[in-house]
């Protein structure tokens, strides 16, 4: 349309300027800070120090372990529940509502609920386990480094799985009915239909769910802050918590920024295929 060349810019300008100010500026400031431009160890000094920092390496390992376990469980549970919700059973609306409920809980609140459930003195888990005679004494789950990690994974598995489930459910509903009918005519059983029709059609959606969930879980902060605050020791401290501590408790701002940039770089690397695919698909 004639004379419209500049109109587009007027529409996108306010949003772009606002984002540049509130997002672009801090992001660039963070990257500059990570190179220690305000004195300190010199360029890239923070990055070199990270590699020999046992706390950072533990936090990286914790993040990786946590994300792999949580995302795997999310996809398995999410796929199972999505399949159930995709069936034409009666009273489905009730289960649909219940299925998304955990995800509506703010993550720090989820962490607090689980922290109380696992409380050594008055928590429900110990009470139940003792009543079922699974153990004799109450146990301090969150005081044990290994069990603390298992507990945090379990808590986030519960809270977060409806998100990939919703993505997978959308994928299931997009599979054409004809494909199932064709499989039925060929005499395929439930399992054969699942592996030959459902799973291949759903694969792109599973990949999307994995990528987006990995990004969410890598950034997770409130759940762990509320549940264990990274403890005991640094047994459940992930990278988000590590950066927060370095910045706001030890005031090692340049060092914290280096760790944050590393985390951001990993997330972007994970997201690049998704971003490219999304942009290509759209236009």
């Amino acid at each position, binding site marked *: 349309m004639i004379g419209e060349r500049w109109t587009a810019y007027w529409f996108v300008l306010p949003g772009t300027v606002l984002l540049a100010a509130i997002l672009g500026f801090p992001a660039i400031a963070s990257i500059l800070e990570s190179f220690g431009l305000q004195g300190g160890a010199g360029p890239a000094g923070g990055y070199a120090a990270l590699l020999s920092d046992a706390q950072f390496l533990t936090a990286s390992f914790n993040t990786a372990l946590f994300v792999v376990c949580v995302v795997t469980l999310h996809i398995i549970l999410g796929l199972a529940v999505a399949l159930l919700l995709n*069936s034409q059973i009666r009273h489905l609306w009730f289960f649909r*509502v219940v299925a998304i409920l955990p995800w509506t809980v703010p993550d720090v609140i989820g962490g607090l609920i689980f922290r109380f459930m696992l409380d050594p003195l008055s928590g429900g888990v110990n009470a139940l386990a003792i009543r079922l005679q699974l153990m004799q004494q109450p146990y301090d789950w969150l005081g044990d480094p290994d069990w603390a990690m298992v507990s945090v994974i379990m808590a986030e598995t519960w809270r977060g799985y409806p998100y990939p489930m919703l993505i997978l459910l959308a994928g299931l509903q997009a599979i054409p009915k004809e494909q199932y009918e064709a499989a039925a005519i060929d005499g395929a059983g439930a399992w054969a239909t699942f592996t030959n029709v459902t799973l291949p059609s759903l694969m792109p959606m599973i990949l999307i769910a994995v990528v987006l969930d990995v990004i969410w879980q890598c950034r997770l902060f409130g759940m762990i802050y509320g549940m264990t605050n990274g403890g005991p020791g640094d047994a459940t401290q992930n990278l988000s918590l590590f950066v927060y501590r370095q910045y706001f408790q030890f005031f090692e701002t340049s060092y914290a920024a280096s760790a944050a940039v590393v985390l951001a770089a990993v997330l972007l690397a994970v997201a690049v295929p998704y971003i490219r695919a999304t942009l290509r698909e759209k236009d």
Partner: protein
Amino acid sequence: MQHRRGFWLFVGTALLIMAAYNLTPFFWMISSSFKTDIEVTSYPATLLPQAFTTAAYARIWDQEGFVLYFINSIKVSGGTAVLSAAVGIFAAYGFSRFRFQGRTALMAMLLITQMLPGVLLVGPYFKMLSLVDLYDTHLGLILAQTSITLPFTVWMLKGYIDTIPVEIDQAAMMDGATRFQSLIHCVFPNVLPGLVATTVFSFLLAWGDLLWALCLITTPEKQTMTLGITNLVGQFRVLWSDIMAATVIGCAIPAVFYLMLQRYLITGVAGAAVKG
């Protein structure tokens, strides 16, 4: 597809197990919030409150100032949602209806910014807000939250506007309407359900945040719900009945909103991820 009765029995049982799994933590939270402060710390724990009381709610609401935190959270989340929607609708319209130089680059930036971790931004943000005297203010927190909600608001709204036929705009402009008028009068009414859904998602994202409030708010009277609940635990004596009552209140708003938006959840949240 025809299924045997055994199949439905299996599906029904599995769904019931799912419901029990999903609801157990809620049950524990709600049950504990109605216990007395003695019962909630007793050993072994009781399943249901022996002496039903709403004392915990009264305590946190009046004495601990949760009525204030609640209002603060509404203010901050509401401000974030309205700001994102107001700015986002124009940008979304621009991206949806025009092909201009730098469009793809800007859209790629929108996607990339959604991947950035909050901890990358929160430090510089803290310094930035101190410089412009917005540290420890709700406005500062709203701007910070908007940096998260605005990119996905634009992206989701663009998806909704894409589904509205261009012919509607063109017809309006044939009749002499400007671009702006055609957005307000033709696109806006059609995109309203999507706009409401997007706005509520922004609201809930801001509502659930802890990191930004933790780093940018220091005055106790300015705390949000999540920050207030977290600080309740940090105190010397952990009173779980009070904390559980606070979490019930903190969960109630998101739960009600999400359930109202159920219809949009699949097309909205998943759709944003799926259709882009």
